[in-house]
């Protein structure tokens, strides 16, 4: 008997088949399209966190696995969908809001959603599920059905792929707990940086009770329930006239008080048929600059006071790298990479945590005497040059010429 024959007979005799055969049933593709489109502006990453179990469909072992890219460059790694697009809320930017133009209402059943997820997962088109939803008739009823869909995947099909579950505003604490027990990551959409801004975006939502209270539930429950990828949130940027400074202050609160893993930003895009259809579109670069600020705080651990240098007098970020603005205000003298600490190095534009670590390691074997050596260590030499003194020489800058 050949090895292939042995394997084939072993597979044929195996009683474990969590995925099962593909459904082969005709699906309502309009439903898939409409409910998928409902999450087009929802953001998510980090699909690698997984619950450690001994058996079942193992998830990806590597993070950030992308399965395809859209024309606009977005990575598609999850089946991102709404459970239902029916919603009584009146969020001005949302095409599913009760005040938006008439639309067809669709809903999945838990079984249907689980089957679609498995079909796509088996073909390796997705890495997991990102499930959001409109409120439907009642937030707890819809939340229960969403949880049931994930429960089916996890228990009946032993699905260990990544699951990101949205907690609907106003959901009960018990539903939050159940969602946390099943999902890798949960999130409540914050939408705006303060109660006043959210009141303008969505008058029917109570900021404190519907949103912040749910975030606190998650924070408190995560002491008892393991949530591998933690809690995240998302904000619409530029729809309610909020400043970047307001958003930054909210980020600090979310990270420091509510222990969030990530805050995502989505630049406001006015959509036809919504209450905000006539408002001005927020520039995409604003979203990008906010992510840079978020990164400086979360990864580089820069102090709030240092980051404040990146904002203008009105509290907005400029369309330029905030790290350069911060470095200009805080680095008085060029830094010598042979003597600088890790904290000093990562404050130089063009040097990140990885290249800073490499510089420290490289210094053990000898001095860094040329910019070329820094480039080999991953430093963006052109950006870092004006802030460094290598081999006793500092690069010429306009400021120094002027002095």
């Amino acid at each position, binding site marked *: 008997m050949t*090895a*292939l024959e*042995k*394997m*084939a007979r072993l*597979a*044929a005799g*195996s009683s*474990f*088949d*969590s*995925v099962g*055969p*593909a*459904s*082969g*049933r005709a*699906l309502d*593709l309009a439903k*898939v*399209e409409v409910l998928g*489109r409902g*999450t*087009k502006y929802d953001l998510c990453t980090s699909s690698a966190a997984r619950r450690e179990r001994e058996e*079942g*469909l*193992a998830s990806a*072992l590597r993070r950030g*696995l*992308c*399965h*395809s*890219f*859209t*024309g*606009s*460059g*977005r990575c*598609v*790694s999850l089946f991102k*969908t709404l459970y239902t697009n029916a919603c009584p809320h009146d969020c001005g930017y949302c095409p599913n809001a009760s005040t938006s133009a008439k639309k067809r209402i669709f809903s999945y059943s838990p079984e249907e959603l689980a089957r679609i997820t498995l*079909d*796509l997962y*088996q*073909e*390796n*088109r997705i890495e997991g599920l990102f499930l959001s939803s409109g409120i439907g008739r009642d937030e707890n009823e819809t939340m229960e059905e969403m949880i049931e869909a994930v429960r089916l995947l996890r228990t009946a099909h032993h699905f260990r792929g990544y699951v990101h579950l949205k907690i609907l505003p106003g959901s009960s604490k018990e539903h939050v707990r159940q969602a946390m027990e099943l999902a890798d990551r949960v999130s409540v959409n914050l939408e705006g940086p303060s109660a006043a801004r959210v009141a303008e975006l969505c008058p029917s939502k109570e900021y404190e009770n519907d949103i912040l209270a749910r975030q606190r539930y998650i924070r408190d429950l995560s002491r008892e329930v393991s949530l591998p990828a933690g809690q995240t949130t998302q904000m619409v940027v530029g729809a309610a006239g909020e400043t970047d400074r307001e958003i930054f202050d909210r980020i600090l609160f979310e990270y420091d008080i509510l222990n969030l893993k990530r805050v995502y930003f989505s*630049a406001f895009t006015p959509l036809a048929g919504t209450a905000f259809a006539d408002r001005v579109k927020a520039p*995409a*670069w604003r979203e*990008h600059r906010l992510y840079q600020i978020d990164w400086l705080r979360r990864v580089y651990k820069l102090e709030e006071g240092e980051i404040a240098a990146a904002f203008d007098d009105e509290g907005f970020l400029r369309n330029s790298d905030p790290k350069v603005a911060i470095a200009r205000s805080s680095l008085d003298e060029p830094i010598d990479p042979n003597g600088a600490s890790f904290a000093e190095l990562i404050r130089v534009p063009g040097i990140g945590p990885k290249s800073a*670590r*490499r*510089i420290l*390691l*490289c210094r*053990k*074997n000898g001095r860094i005497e040329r910019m070329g*050596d820094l480039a*080999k260590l991953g430093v963006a030499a052109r950006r870092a040059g004006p802030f460094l003194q290598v081999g006793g020489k500092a690069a010429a800058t306009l400021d120094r010429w002027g002095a």
Partner: protein
Amino acid sequence: MRTGDLIRYLAAHRDSNDRLMARARTLSPEEVEGSTDPEVLRIRRMALAVWGEVCRMRGFVRLQALGDRVLWGRISPHHDVGFEICDFFARRFPGKMIVLGDGRRSWTSLYSDGALLHQEGGGLAATLAEISGIMDLSAEGGEEEEEEGRQVSEEKGGEERDEKEVDPPHMGAEEGAGTAAGDLWTAYYQSQDVPRKAGGRRYGGRISKRSIRSAGLDTEKGSGSAKLQDFI
């Protein structure tokens, strides 16, 4: 990168040799990270190239079912990473045989009862036909790929294929087009696409053409724009 991973990935590189392997074994993770020595930099680049291919293949290979117990897909890796990818999917789908390959080579893995079995074989179609015979299934896929693989191989005089031909041009959606899952994917994919999203060009510029090509899906490539073939 840990030393074990470094050596594993370096060994899988198509330009790897004994001298580089011996040097890699002497390197600590700190040296690999912090050295500016040209040879160490080369070792790091080679290991990262293999790691990148493994990551890309894991993401972009599309699996199809052959009966209830076999999942197969087309891959044509540049480096020697067939088992790495095949074993990954075998662990993901316990009890199912995973068969990956192209017209010239195939890799088969099965994860069952905590044990991982694998086997390297000839062309994908031949392997699938053999499995079908054993399992009494009707083989449907792979023949075209086998033929294509042969042609490419003949054109290149049996030599190593260059970068351009590494990623099968049809890894993914074509085989699914018209099927329930293929239509489902098309509908979902198009719901996520934002062709006119501002800033897309900047983000898109960071993704290598090779990665986009290796997805190879008509749906993805089309991204809302009509092609000449659409009018013929």
